[in-house]
């Protein structure tokens, strides 16, 4: 066990898996000598060499397309996209190819590729270094989508993703790369894909979130507690396939749901959670299903603190829900 940041956990997960399995390779922009712009791959090229830690030319569809070919051959590649905002040039390779190879070939070919990418706001990245576009991927059948909120989950989920036989989009909440620390076991272990975690138990309202926002929810839950409201906080961890049971059980218990995420609200992932609740737990509801999200605008630079849901905004939704 050692205290690690989320970023160090990501690095450690790759190191551990590359030691255990020579099929694991890394490809991405600046992942080699530079160690990645966030230093997630720091030191790996020294240990495993440029044959397994490959600096790619500046082309995201080339990164995903070639990594897909490697995965079909039998490797276990990890592709890094420098910022999630830059994943779109690879969208066709992800949506038309990677996600559909197993299906369209009747499982005669498969592509177990992990795509790692930092996402979300909070680093003054403005329009193009802050986006949370998970909904584009959760709507895509054939992909799994995972995002940790703490170092322990980060390592266990990333190792699980590398070992998974399906393509996994692994979203790293860059805002908390270095600020959230925790005890992380040494060596290999996995956290199961497809299982949410209840990070705080409560009775009056369920906050459903993932990634960096989980911490904002915990703060809001503290504040709610000080007002006598007991909030349960669900950290989804896997966005697809979602652990609907955990969400439903919690909402059945509390009767109230507030979904929190950073993406623009309209058609975001939060809509699916609301829809699942409206379909499967409508009788338990004592209040409307509320969403606290980013605004339906592109991300903004000067006003990012207003754009991002903070504890105060979440608290006002909790109040609305409870007062309903």
């Amino acid at each position, binding site marked *: 066990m050692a205290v690690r940041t989320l970023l160090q956990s990501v690095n450690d997960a790759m190191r551990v898996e590359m030691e255990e399995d020579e099929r694991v390779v890394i490809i991405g922009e600046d992942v080699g000598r530079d160690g990645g712009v966030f230093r997630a791959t720091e030191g790996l090229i020294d240990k495993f060499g440029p044959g397994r830690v490959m600096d790619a030319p500046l*082309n995201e569809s*080339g990164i995903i*397309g070639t990594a897909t*070919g*490697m995965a079909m051959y039998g*490797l276990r590649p990890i592709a890094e996209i420098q910022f999630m905002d830059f994943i779109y040039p690879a969208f*066709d390779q992800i949506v038309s190819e990677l996600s*559909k190879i197993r299906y369209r070939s009747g499982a005669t070919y498969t592509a177990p590729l992990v795509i790692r990418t930092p996402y979300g706001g909070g680093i003054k990245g403005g329009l193009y270094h802050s986006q949370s576009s998970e909904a584009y991927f959760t709507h895509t*059948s*054939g992909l799994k989508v995972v995002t940790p909120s703490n170092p322990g989950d980060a390592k266990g989920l990333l190792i699980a993703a590398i070992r998974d036989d399906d393509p996994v989009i692994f979203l790293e909440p860059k805002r908390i790369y270095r600020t959230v620390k925790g005890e992380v076991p040494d060596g290999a272990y996995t956290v199961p894909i497809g299982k949410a975690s209840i990070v705080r138990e409560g009775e009056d309202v369920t906050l459903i979130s993932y990634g960096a926002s989980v911490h904002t929810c915990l703060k809001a839950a503290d504040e709610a507690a000080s007002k006598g409201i007991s909030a349960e906080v669900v950290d989804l961890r896997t966005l697809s396939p979602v652990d609907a049971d955990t969400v439903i059980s919690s909402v059945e218990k509390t009767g109230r749901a507030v979904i929190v995420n950073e993406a623009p609200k309209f058609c975001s992932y939060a809509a699916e959670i609301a829809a699942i609740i409206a379909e499967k737990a409508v009788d338990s509801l004592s209040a409307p299903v509320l969403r606290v999200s980013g605004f339906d605008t592109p991300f903004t630079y000067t006003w990012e603190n207003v754009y991002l849901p903070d504890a105060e905004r979440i608290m006002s939704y909790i109040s609305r829900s409870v007062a309903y």
Partner: protein
Amino acid sequence: MELRKETGMLQILDIEGNFRKELEPDIPEELLLRMYRTMATVRKFEEISMGLQRQGRIGFYIGAAGQEACSVGSTAVLGRDDWIFPAYREPGALLLRGETVLQLFHQLFGNSLDYNKGRQMPNHFNSRKVNVVTPSSPIATQIPHAVGMAMAARIMKRKDVALTFFGDGATSENDFHSGMNFAGVFKAPVIFLCQNNGYAISLPTRRQTAAETLVQKAVAYGIPGERVDGNDILAVYSASARAVERARSGGGPTMIEAITYRLGPHSSSDDPTKYRDKEEVEEWKRKDPIRRMALYLRRKGLMDERSEKKIGDEIDSEIRAAAKKAEGTPRPPVESIFENVYSEMTWNLREEMEETVQRYGAGYTGK
């Protein structure tokens, strides 16, 4: 690297069946005959399938008539462990490697024996059995896959190479650009075989790009290129052999531009009279790659009128029998819709499957 204006093209076998002895590749007789039979099978397969399509018995067809030498001539130089990333005009690649006509028909009918389990439109032939990788409809997407697989083979210290097929139109797509560039940078053992058939649906190649030739695009990536008569199977074979030798010995990628022509429509949905004239088609009919191959075999004493006829008859009855069999094969059960999305079925897919089974019955394969 030498940048040359490469507007000529290699031709070994001319349209009369004359060939340049000094350039003639050394192809075993058995292989030559198999190559011919494969080309003839592709042509006949298309004729019969287009008929099935017109009768509404299959939904669609996208043909290779006129281009058979490209896929057959290049596939012929590969070893069994090498990989092929096809587009949709390469049934010849599968057949030459031993896949059956019956299996191709299973795909056209999308039945329960189709490797794809009825999920793709006709002519998306994949065969793990013969190392032909799963194609999709979006143009050019297979190119980076071929490069990645070739890179992986090198990483794992194996000797396999990858061969990928695409058209003139595909050279405009993003994935051509990224695939070629990565191949150059990582010296991937891959062969890019561009079948320049003069059109991307209705768009003539000269309006696809201002480049005088397509092979000169290789210059942009530091990759050597060669331009060949794509209706001359000997030229395709010899250029491919050089490219495979280069790739296998660590020399990296090669691009081959094969000049050819599709004699039929773009697909069963297309009306080519809208964008090209009869004379052009007639001119290319005279360059037919199968007839040229037949003339060559005759000159070599490997075939005569009788054996040619016999091969034709065998092919015809094999194909008709296979079509019948495939048409009589049931659909995949309705549950197959929900399989293979993931390695294990997720809860939501299970929910959807159960509802479907409830409506149609377990194992339902149609009325």
